[in-house]
């Protein structure tokens, strides 16, 4: 574990130095980014080595003689560490030019400081070996990311986003704490190992409670409400890390709990799969309805968390129905999608960051034609979009392929396993189609066509570090899509480290499937070359003219006549109207020449809507009535505390 702690220390030291050097902005950035990258690289190498040679490394420290802080690295944590360090490394590089325009050097420094803490705490979360260590790292992670979200603390929108995030992450943490509390109540130990000895009823309660807690971090519907607020508020490299990596710690928690509980009931699989299906479909429907690019991406994270949960759910159902192949395929697919999503989602957030940086707007309907001036960014975002739609030959397809195959294995079973597998397959198909609609909207409206407003005219794409970071990620999307073999061993190792009760994960079918994907992708690329050659042949010595777009007889087209994102999505949103109610506002058209008119629309998130109605409003009402307790007198406050402790002593 030595190398791991050294890399954590380097990262933290980098964050600390940024505060010290806050006044020399340039120097601070160089040193901090260098140290963060170096730390991440070191950690990455260590994690990869740990994954290649699986073994369990551990370390524990006694802290104040009360708690023991224990850390452990196994295949599962190694897999998540690879993702954490790899994406944070790229995000740190990206941030070098992204943070350039900040006038306030101190704010940048504070941002780097909390960024370093976030990286370190995420790494500690996935290596924590007892509940105290886990909770401690978890809270540090939540708090540091909270400070990153309120980066623009002078804007009311950011503060609201931060508030949302704070409440959700802490209510979630309460649920996790409740789950740990039940465990402690039964076993009397803070260790993870004892969880397996709980009675069955308690296990179910622990799982559900921790699923809610971890789900609220991961962004599972309906606990996803904070995501679309927090992601747009944070700087883009932070959104990339939060969406690509941090929410995956929630998934890690769910998997970890599942493994520790070691209860192979179909209930867990069904819960996880059902939550996955709902998050997947609704997430992408809401994404389709967004006009804000980063909000759209945030909702699409909800969708991808859904796909990951579908994969894990398929795996869990495979375990409970004693079908090893289905179990392994489901888990491997889910893990692959965790890895792939972290790559293409950070890529897309970085692309969105570049757009935001250069145009100053996040509104899709204000953009257009960006591809002409932002060639690298445009290409990277197109690759990211193709990958996120799960299309071959890009990496998103690989994970979904495995989940599908696992799901189809379940079709051969009977009763609930059959129903749930069908459910998984059909919803994956629908999610795929919706994602295609959603990301053709992003590409078609924001990057293609003509600029809709001045913001999108005459822009450039500068910032070598940003372009470099995006190119690396886009390259990874293509490479993994064509040669899945180069990373397939990672999820396979992680799955075999789960110890699902199967002696060994057979590597042969995976190698074969990866080979098939490579073969198919090669065939496709060859046929593309063939068609390109044919096209070239027919275009030899031909006259090519350029002219305006055919306006179907209309001779005075303006850029305002282009299709907008809202109209593009409206057909599909109509279909999902009960789940995605639309608020529209426009005056009645009167007279022959209605000049001054406007139209605004907003797609409501039913989770947010009902949460406000059922939970927030009653609580506010109640607390309003209790306002007299809070009077500002310190003496009486201390009295309250004493009273509470004395009362508690009676009960315990």
């Amino acid at each position, binding site marked *: 574990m030595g190398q791991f702690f050294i890399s954590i220390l380097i990262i933290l030291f980098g964050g600390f130095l940024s505060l010290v050097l806050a006044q020399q902005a340039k120097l601070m950035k160089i040193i901090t980014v260098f140290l963060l990258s170096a730390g991440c690289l070191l950690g990455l190498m260590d994690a990869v080595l740990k994954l290649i040679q699986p073994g369990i490394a551990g370390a524990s420290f006694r802290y104040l003689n009360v708690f023991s802080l224990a850390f452990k690295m196994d295949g599962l944590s190694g897999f998540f560490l690879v993702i954490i360090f790899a994406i944070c490394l790229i995000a740190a590089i990206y941030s070098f030019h992204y943070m350039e325009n900040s006038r306030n050097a101190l704010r940048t420094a504070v941002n780097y400081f909390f960024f370093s803490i976030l990286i370190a705490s995420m790494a500690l979360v996935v290596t924590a070996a007892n509940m105290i260590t886990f909770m401690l790292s978890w809270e540090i992670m939540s708090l540091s990311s909270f400070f990153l979200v309120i980066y623009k603390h002078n804007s009311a929108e950011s503060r609201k986003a931060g508030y949302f995030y704070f409440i959700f992450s802490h209510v979630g943490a309460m649920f996790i704490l409740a789950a740990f509390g039940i465990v402690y109540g039964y076993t009397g130990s803070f260790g993870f190992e004892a969880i397996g000895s709980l009675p069955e009823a308690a296990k179910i309660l622990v799982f559900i409670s921790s699923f809610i807690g971890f789900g609220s971090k991961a962004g599972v519907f309906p606990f996803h409400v904070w995501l679309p607020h927090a992601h747009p508020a944070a700087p883009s490299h932070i959104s990339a890390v939060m969406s690509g990596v941090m929410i995956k710690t929630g998934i890690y928690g769910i998997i970890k709990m599942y493994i520790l509980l070691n209860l192979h009931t179909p209930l867990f699989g069904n819960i996880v799969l059902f939550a996955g299906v709902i998050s997947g479909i609704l997430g992408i429907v809401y994404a389709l309805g967004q006009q804000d690019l980063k909000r759209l991406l945030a909702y699409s994270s909800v969708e991808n968390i859904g796909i990951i949960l579908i994969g894990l759910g398929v795996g869990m159902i495979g375990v409970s129905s004693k079908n090893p192949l289905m179990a392994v395929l489901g888990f491997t697919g889910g893990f692959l999608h965790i890895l792939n999503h972290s790559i293409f989602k950070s890529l897309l957030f970085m692309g969105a960051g570049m757009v935001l940086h250069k145009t100053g707007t996040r509104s899709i309907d204000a953009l257009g*034609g960006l*591809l*002409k001036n932002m060639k690298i960014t445009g290409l990277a975002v197109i690759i990211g979009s*193709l990958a996120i*739609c*799960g*299309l*071959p030959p890009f990496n998103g*397809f690989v994970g*979904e*392929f495995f989940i*599908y*195959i696992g799901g*189809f294995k379940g*079709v*051969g079973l009977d009763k609930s396993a*059959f129903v749930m597998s*069908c459910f998984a*397959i*059909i919803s*994956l*198909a*629908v999610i*795929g*189609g919706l994602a*295609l*609609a959603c990301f*053709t*909207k992003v*590409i*078609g409206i924001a990057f*293609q*066509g003509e600029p809709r407003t001045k913001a999108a005219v005459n822009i450039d794409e500068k910032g070598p570090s940003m372009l470099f970071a995006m190119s690396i990620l886009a390259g990874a999307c293509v490479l993994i899509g064509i040669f899945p073999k180069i990373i397939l061993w990672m999820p396979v190792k992680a799955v075999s480290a789960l110890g699902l009760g199967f002696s060994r994960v057979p590597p042969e079918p995976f190698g*074969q499937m990866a080979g*098939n994907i490579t073969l*198919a992708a090669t*065939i*496709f690329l060859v*046929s*593309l070359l063939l*068609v*390109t050659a044919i*096209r070239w042949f*027919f*275009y030899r010595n*031909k006259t*090519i*003219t*350029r*002219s*305006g*777009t*055919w306006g*179907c007889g209309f001779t005075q087209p303006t*850029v305002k006549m*282009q*299709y907008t994102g809202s109209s*593009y999505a409206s*057909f*599909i949103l109509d279909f999902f109207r009960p789940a995605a109610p639309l608020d529209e506002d426009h005056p009645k058209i009167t007279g022959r020449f209605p000049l001054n008119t406007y139209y605004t629309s907003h797609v409501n998130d039913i989770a947010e809507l009902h949460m406000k109605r059922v939970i927030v409003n009653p609580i506010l009402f109640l607390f309003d009535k209790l306002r007299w307790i809070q009077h500002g007198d310190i003496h009486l406050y201390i009295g309250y505390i004493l009273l509470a402790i004395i009362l508690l002593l009676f009960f315990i």
Partner: protein
Amino acid sequence: MIESIILWLLAVLVAPFFSGVILKVKAFFGGKKGPPLLINYYTLIKLFKKGSVYSTSTTVMFKLGPIISLGSALVVLMFLPIAGQDPIFSFNGDILFILYLMGLGRFFVIAAAMDTASPFEGMGAAREAYFPILCEATTFMILIFFYRLTGELQLSAYFTGGNTIGLWSLAGAPLIFIVISFFIILLTENSRVPVDDPATHLELTMIHEVMVLDHSGPDFGLIELGSFCKLFFYSTIVSRLIFPFDFGFSAIGCFVFIAGLIIVYVAVGVTESVIARYRMDKVPQFVLTSFALAFFATIITLEFIK
């Protein structure tokens, strides 16, 4: 292998001919003589001879659209068992790859349409993005049905040799549902009446045709060839389902297969002649009917085939 390659080449070459059959059937119903059966070849040759006009709004995506849509259609045909023969390539899960590859083709056709900044093409693109979502649900339901029967996830396990007749003997009655359901998918995915009218003259009512308004010359030819291949793919499957007999690689086998194909194309032509295009908001109901059919078929097999 060599037979499969020959069949693949033949499929690409004759696909435009069969699409001509539809026009002939429609002309017959309209009491007209109609265009010659080889009309699509004349059109393709004419298009390939021309140059192109590109809109000033377009980028490289506009040129990628035709290449990728034809490229994916060609690859899809390589995985398709034609006339009950083994396809060129086949592996476990190839059907997933094929379906997603068609998705890739659609992505680029939509992107090429959005590239022109034309409101009409945007409208067509929005519809093109919408209806296939429902189709995919049906297609995967049909796959679940097939998987339930065979335990395999590749096209060759359903449509080569004696496999298809095996399906009929296992679950004949539900398979009729599947054939109807798949025919609806064929109509929807290939922009035929009653979902889309390829012969309409008003841009506002088109789906596929409006998306390719700005393509011209060889580019347009590639797109046309791609859509002929796509229709051929779906028709082959339906043809194989209605004539499941296995004659090996022989003249009679090919003859039966072609007869099946002609029946499918004539059926498309008849459908186009006797039904009007649905209003856009009725289309989802039409497509979801196919889902319901496939769903019931699966439920029936669940009870009767253990």
